[in-house]
């Protein structure tokens, strides 16, 4: 993904190298931000904010592995900020049309990948009752495929809390799936 050489070069203040780092890193950051926020524009804003923060704090990065965790952590924190801002105005309303869409998609064999709009709708209604933390843990663990240790390091919560949050998130989503599909 990223090598330490590239990070070293970016530290020198070279914009071209940093452009390359943005190009390589943005898709990962966008994926997490989009799955957490369910909104393309907000996810792009999060990526942009994340990249600016990375540029400002490049000196702190010690290794390429640490960079990945650090990147996810910034994305998750920026996403929390956006979620906090829009908390009073929930965007997702579970309508019949969306449930029919999910039902159709999972009955297809093999099911085709969803478009961004469809993905945001589905994640939105499945996770609407989850707390920010539960949502982050679910996205990082079940959708991004990270281990509990990595999720714990990224979110700053203990491993047992990660497991508990993941359990509640899965339970809530399962109940919805069972109820509506």
């Amino acid at each position, binding site marked *: 993904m990223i090598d330490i050489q590239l990070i070293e070069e970016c530290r020198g203040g070279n914009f071209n190298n940093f452009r390359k780092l943005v190009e390589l890193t943005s898709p990962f950051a966008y994926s997490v931000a989009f799955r957490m926020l369910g909104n393309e524009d907000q996810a792009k804003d999060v990526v942009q904010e994340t990249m600016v923060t990375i540029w400002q704090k490049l000196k702190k990065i010690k290794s390429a592995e640490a960079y990945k965790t650090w990147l996810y952590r910034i994305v998750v924190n920026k996403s929390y900020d956006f979620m906090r801002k829009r908390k009073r105005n929930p965007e997702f309303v579970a309508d019949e049309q969306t449930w029919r869409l999910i039902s159709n998609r999972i009955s297809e064999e093999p099911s085709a990948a969803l478009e961004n709009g469809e993905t945001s709708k589905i994640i939105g209604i499945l996770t609407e009752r989850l707390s920010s933390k539960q949502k982050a843990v679910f996205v990082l663990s079940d959708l991004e495929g990270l281990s509990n240790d990595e999720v714990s390091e990224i979110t700053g919560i203990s491993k047992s809390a990660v497991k508990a949050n993941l359990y509640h998130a899965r339970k809530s989503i399962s109940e919805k*799936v069972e109820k509506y599909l």
Partner: protein
Amino acid sequence: MTRESEKYNKVLDLLRKSKPALDSTDDIERKVIKRISKVGHSGLNLSDIIDFLFGWVYIGWVRRSLIGASIVLVLVFAYQQTIILKRIDFLSRQTIVIDRENGPALSDEVEKMLTMYKNSWKRFPSKNITISEKQMKELLEAVNELQLKYKDLENLIEGDPELKKMIEKKMIENSRTKINL
């Protein structure tokens, strides 16, 4: 595998497969480079200062500890106020007794005389008499001396029957003279 978990896994597979796609990183790159060019590599901006000063409020355990501490402080304050109010209420019901320094013991008769003396002031309010402490002492000494002399005289009369007889006779004569008048 239950039907519920099968459905859940299918939804999860669908979402995993549908990784949000970032249409182009060019726009993000351009915006990020524009922003970091303005700020400079090591420039200290307002968000850095705010982050440095208030960034700790985003740490979960710090936030929860502060909430806990503020609740404890409010409770302690309320408890102290209650104690203070109770104490004030208790003190306001107490009778204040100031123990004045005891002077020389006076005999009953002297006390009576002083009372009479005080009453005479009330009877004749126009005649205000002011005496000093020294004069008061002299008066008391004189009264005591007079009492002693009176007792001596009494003993002398009791010891001499002839003298007693003569004095009784004289007193009867005196009383007659008063009645005649």
